[in-house]
C-alpha cells in the first residue's frame, strides 16, 4: 500500500480549555480530493488550521510526506508544501491584488504555478491587478485567495469554505476550475457547508460532528440519510 | 421547590483576616511618634505618600486602563498650588493641601478632553507632554522662584506648630491620615456601582461598553479623582520637603518611574499591589542605597522581568495561588434560602 501524503492520526485540539477536536483521523493520498463537511462549530476549520500549523494538537500526530508536522510552525508548514485558503478569504488589505499573489510566493517553493498562470486561470484578476485587494467583489477575492495559496506551489491545498457568502453561480464557476487546479497531482481538502458541491468534487468524504468524525467513506457510496444523520447527530 | 434569593457579599475569610491585620497595623502606625525616632517617622511618611501615589496610579492604569506617564503633572501642580497659596496668599499650609485637590480636579478636565483623543501608548506620551508643559510654565513663574524654585518661608514653618517635634508629628499624622483617606476612597469607589463598571472595563473594555457602560464617562471620573488625590499628596510631599522647584516637582523619575515600578512589581489591578510594591521598593532602596543610578537601573530590570514573567505582580501571584484578598472587594453571590415549614 502506497504511503499516504497526509496522515492525521487521532488528534485532540484545544482552544485554551475548550476541546474542539476529539481523536480526529483523516488520510489523503497524492492527487486525491477529500471533502470535510459538518455543521457550524463542528471543528472543520480547526482541523484545517491544525494541518496548516496555525494550531497544534495536544495529543495525536500529523505526518506529511513521511515527516512529522504536527508541531511545525505555520511558516514552516507552507515551505513543506501545504497551503491554506483561509475562511473568509483574508486577503491583505494594504496590498494590491498582484502584491497579494506575489506574497503567496514568499516561501520560494519551485513549481508550475506563477503569476502568469494564475492570471490565465482567473483572467479577471489580471484586469484588476493593481487595485487594492479590498476593491474586488466576493467571488474575485475568493479567486485571489486561491491564487495566493497556489503561488506557494503546494502539494496539498486546503480550502476553507470557499463558497461562503458567494452567489451559487460564482461558486459553480470557481469549482469548475478545480480540475485545472489539481491537474498536476495536487491533493485537495475542501471544507464545505455546500454539501452538493463537496460531494461532486471529492472522492472521499469525512463528516465532522462536534469535534468527532461521525461518518467517512467514498463520496458515491454515502446516502443522503447517512449524511444527514452524521451532520446533525440525530 | 424552595424559594431562594441571592445577595452580593464582598468578604471572604482571607479578607476578614486582612481587615484585622490592617486595623492593627493602623493603630501601631498611628502610635509611631511614640515608639519611633525622627528618621523612622520621615521614612514612614515617605512610604505612605508612595503608597498613596501608587494606589492612585493603579486605579488609573490597572482599573480604568489609562496608562499615564504624566501623573507628575499633578504632583507638581499640587506642590506649586501649595507654595503659591502659602507664600502669595498667606493661607495655612494644611488648608492649602485640601484646596489644591479640587483645583487640580478642575484643571484635569480640559487636560482629559485633550489627552483622551489619543489611544493607548500615544495617550501615555500625551500625558507626558502635558506634564512637560506644566513644568515649563512653572519655571516661568518668577514669583515662585522661576527655574530654581523657592523655599518655604521660615515664618510659615514656625507657625505650623509650637515646636519642631510637634511639627514633625503633625506632618506624620497628616501623611498617614491622607494616605488612609485616599485608600478608603479607592476602596469605596471599587465597592460602588462605578467600581463594578471599572472592574468590567479592566477585564474587557469592549464587552463592558456593549453592556451599556459609558466607558468614557467612567474613565473621566477616575481621571479627575486621581488628579484630585495626586495633587493633594504632591502638596503634602513638598510641604514636608520645605522646598519646591520645577525639576523636582515634575520629575518623571521620582513621581512616575518609581510609582510605575512599585505598582508593577506589587501587582497591577489589585488594591493590595501598591502596598506590597512600596514595601519592596523601600526595602530595596535601603539595601541598595549606595549604588546611585545603578539602583534605578536594577529597578527597571526587575520591573521588566516581572512584567514578562509575572505580569500580575507579587500580590497577583500570591492571591491567585491561594485565592486571598486582604480587603473585602470581591463580589460573590450567596443564596439565602427561606426556611421550609
Amino acid at each position, binding site marked *: 500500500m502506497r504511503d499516504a501524503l497526509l496522515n492525521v492520526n487521532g488528534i485532540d485540539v484545544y482552544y485554551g480549555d475548550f476541546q474542539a477536536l476529539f481523536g480526529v483521523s483523516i488520510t489523503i493520498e497524492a492527487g486525491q480530493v477529500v471533502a470535510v463537511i459538518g455543521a457550524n462549530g463542528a471543528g472543520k476549520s480547526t482541523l484545517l488550521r491544525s494541518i*496548516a500549523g*496555525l494550531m497544534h494538537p495536544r495529543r495525536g500526530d500529523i505526518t506529511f510526506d513521511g515527516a512529522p508536522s504536527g508541531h511545525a*510552525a*505555520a*511558516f514552516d508548514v*507552507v*515551505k513543506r508544501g501545504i*497551503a*491554506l485558503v*483561509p475562511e473568509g478569504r*483574508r486577503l*491583505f*488589505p*494594504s*496590498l494590491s491584488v498582484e502584491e497579494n499573489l*506575489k*506574497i503567496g510566493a*514568499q*516561501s*520560494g517553493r519551485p513549481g508550475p504555478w506563477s503569476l502568469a498562470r494564475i492570471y490565465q486561470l482567473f483572467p479577471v484578476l489580471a484586469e484588476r491587478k493593481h487595485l487594492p485587494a479590498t476593491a474586488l467583489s466576493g467571488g474575485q477575492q475568493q479567486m485571489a485567495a486561491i491564487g*495566493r495559496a497556489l503561488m*506557494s506551489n503546494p502539494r496539498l491545498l486546503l480550502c476553507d469554505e470557499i463558497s461562503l457568502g458567494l452567489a451559487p453561480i460564482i461558486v459553480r464557476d470557481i469549482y469548475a476550475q478545480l480540475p485545472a487546479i489539481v491537474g498536476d497531482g495536487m491533493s485537495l481538502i475542501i471544507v464545505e457547508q455546500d454539501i452538493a458541491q463537496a460531494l461532486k468534487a471529492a472522492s472521499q468524504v469525512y463528516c465532522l460532528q462536534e469535534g468527532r468524525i461521525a461518518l467517512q467513506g467514498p463520496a458515491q457510496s454515502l446516502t443522503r440519510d447517512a449524511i444527514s444523520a452524521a451532520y446533525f447527530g440525530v | 421547590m424552595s424559594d431562594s434569593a441571592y445577595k452580593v457579599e464582598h468578604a471572604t475569610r482571607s479578607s476578614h483576616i486582612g481587615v484585622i491585620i490592617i486595623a492593627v497595623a493602623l493603630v501601631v502606625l498611628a502610635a509611631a511618634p511614640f515608639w519611633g525616632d525622627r528618621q523612622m517617622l520621615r521614612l514612614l511618611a515617605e512610604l505612605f505618600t508612595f503608597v498613596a501615589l501608587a494606589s492612585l496610579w493603579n486605579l488609573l492604569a490597572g482599573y480604568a*486602563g489609562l*496608562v499615564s*506617564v504624566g501623573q507628575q503633572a499633578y504632583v507638581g501642580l499640587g506642590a506649586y498650588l501649595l507654595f503659591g497659596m502659602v507664600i502669595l496668599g498667606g493661607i495655612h499650609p494644611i488648608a492649602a493641601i485640601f484646596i489644591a485637590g479640587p483645583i487640580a480636579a478642575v484643571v484635569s478636565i480640559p487636560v482629559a*478632553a*485633550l489627552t483622551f*483623543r*489619543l*489611544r*493607548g*501608548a500615544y495617550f*501615555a*506620551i500625551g500625558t*507626558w*507632554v*502635558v506634564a*512637560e*508643559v506644566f513644568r*515649563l*510654565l512653572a519655571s*516661568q513663574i518668577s514669583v515662585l522662584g522661576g527655574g530654581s524654585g523657592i523655599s518655604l518661608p521660615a515664618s510659615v514653618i514656625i507657625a505650623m506648630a509650637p515646636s519642631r517635634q510637634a511639627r514633625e508629628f503633625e506632618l506624620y499624622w497628616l501623611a498617614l491620615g491622607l494616605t488612609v483617606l485616599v485608600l478608603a476612597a479607592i476602596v469605596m469607589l471599587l465597592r460602588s456601582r462605578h467600581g463594578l463598571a471599572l472592574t468590567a472595563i479592566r477585564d474587557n473594555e469592549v464587552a463592558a461598553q456593549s453592556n451599556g457602560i459609558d466607558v468614557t464617562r467612567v474613565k473621566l471620573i477616575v481621571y479627575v479623582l486621581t488628579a484630585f488625590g495626586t495633587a493633594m499628596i504632591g502638596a503634602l510631599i513638598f510641604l514636608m520637603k520645605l522646598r519646591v522647584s520645577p525639576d523636582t516637582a515634575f520629575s518623571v*523619575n521620582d513621581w512616575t*518611574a518609581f510609582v*510605575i*515600578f512599585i505598582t*508593577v512589581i506589587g501587582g*497591577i489591578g489589585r488594591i493590595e499591589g501598591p502596598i506590597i510594591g512600596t514595601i519592596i521598593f523601600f526595602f530595596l532602596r535601603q539595601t541598595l542605597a549606595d549604588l546611585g*543610578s*545603578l539602583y*534605578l*537601573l536594577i*529597578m*527597571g*530590570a526587575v*520591573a*521588566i522581568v516581572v*512584567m*514578562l514573567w509575572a*505580569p500580575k505582580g507579587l500580590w497577583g501571584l500570591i492571591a491567585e495561588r491561594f485565592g486571598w484578598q486582604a480587603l473585602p472587594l470581591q463580589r460573590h453571590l450567596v443564596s439565602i434560602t427561606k426556611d421550609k415549614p
Partner: protein
Amino acid sequence: MTEWLNVILQGVLIGGLYAMFAAGLSLIFGVMRLVNIAHGDLIVLAAYVALTVTDTLGIGPLTSLILVVPAMALIGYAMQRLLLNRTLGDDLLPPLLVTFGLSIIIQNGLLEVFTADSRKLQAGAVEIMTYQVSPGIWIGLLPLIQFIVAVAVIAGLQVLFYRTALGRAFRATSDDQSVAQLMGLDTRHVFAMAMALSLAIIAIAGVFLAVRSNFDPAIGPARLIFGFEAVIIGGLGSMWGTLAGGIILGVSQAIGAQIDPGWQLLAGHIVFLVILAIRPQGLFPKVSG
C-alpha cells in the same frame, strides 16, 4: 523681516531632524502597533556609540555612520527578537511598561558609563560653513545636509515599503499576522527586521543630533516627545505627513525661541496641543489611529 525668514528657515531645517526622530517611531507603530517609549533614549545611545567609535578610531562622526548604523540595527534586531516580541499581544500594558523600563535602564546605564557630562561630536569645517541664499538669509551646510538626508530617509522608507518584498512583508504582517505566517513569513523575524530598520534610522538621527548640539544621558525623553509630536501633528500612517509635522514643530519652536529663549519648547508643545484639540487626526492622516 529677514531675521524672521532666517528663523523660519532654521526651523524648517531642524524639522528634518525631528522628522527622522518620528519616522522610526511611526514605522514601528505601523508594523506592530508598538510604541517604543525608549525611542528617544536609543537616539542618545546612538550618539554615545558614535562618540565611542569616533574616539577609538579617530574618524569623523559622519564617517562613523558606517559602523554606527549596522551596530544599532543589530541591537534593534536582538532587542526585538529577545525581549520585545514577548510583549506583543492584545494587552497594552506589557510593551508600554517594558519599553518604559528599557528607557530607564538605558538612561542610567549611560549615566554610569559616561557620567552626566555634556558631550558633543565635532564634524570639522562642515559645521561652520554657511551659504548666503539671498541678502541676509544664510543656510548652514550641516543643517542643510541633515535636512536632505532626512528627506532621503523618508523617501527611502516609502520605496522600501511600497516597492520591495520586505516592505510587502511589513504591510502584510501588520495587516494580519496569522495569514502572513501562512505565506511563509516568520513574523518574529519580520518584527525584528522592522525594529532593526527603526534603529538604523535612529542611528543616523543620533549622529546628526550629536554633531548639531550637546548631548547627555538625560535628553532622550525630550527627543521621544519631539518625534511623537511630529507624528501626531503630521498625521498617523503618512511618512510625508511626518516630515510636514516635523517641519511645523521645528518652525514653532524656532519662532518661540525668537520671542523668548525660555519659550522654545513651550511653543512647540502648545502648537501640538492646539492641533490635538482642533484636528486630532493630524494634518495629513492616512489611516485612523
